[in-house]
């Protein structure tokens, strides 16, 4: 789970780094995003990366989604 609640800005380099992390986890890994707000949340939806990384309001919700 990646907690972005304290992050105010992400550019495509940051997004690419998050994608790289997911790729390094391999086919059995998954990465959920928690707490993305404002422009950060919009970047995920604009780039359709929200289809790759489920966005959750809280860390707890993100943890639940991965353990389910």
């Amino acid at each position: 789970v990646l907690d972005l609640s304290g992050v105010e800005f992400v550019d495509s380099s940051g997004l690419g780094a998050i994608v790289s992390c997911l790729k390094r986890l391999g086919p059995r890994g998954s990465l959920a995003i928690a707490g993305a707000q404002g422009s950060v949340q919009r970047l995920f939806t604009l780039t359709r990366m929200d289809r790759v990384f489920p966005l959750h309001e809280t860390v707890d919700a993100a943890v639940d989604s991965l353990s389910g």
Partner: protein
Amino acid sequence: MSAAIQLAVDSDLSHVALVARAVRAICADFLDAEAADAVELSLVEAINNVIKHGYEGKPGKDVGVLVSLQKDRVTIEVVDRALPIEAAVFERSSDPFAFDETNLDDVPEGGMGLALIRMSMDEVEYMSRDGENRLRMTKLIPPRG
């Protein structure tokens, strides 16, 4: 009212966020938060491209940013004397975000900057002449009503 201001920044990736925040502040009275986000992101992407690709990551080179504020639009120009973006790359119409999310290999890790600029701004033009490159990005301001 119209006004213009010019900033210059060294081609160092660690300076990009600072200049983008400065430009955001300059535009603050003209744009709502979402439009300011779009301008900030586009400027970061544009300068990152100049530094990473144009100047091949070398610091100590000049990147100019010209901000022009008009009643109906905010125009941002990024000016450099680096290697120009090839026309084929600039005009490329393929959408990096049309990936297959079920296939991780298909999800892009880079090559998203120009596409993000096009999605975020209303007009994007690129000019390269006499060794000087100029990326002009325009955000239109909807009339109040």
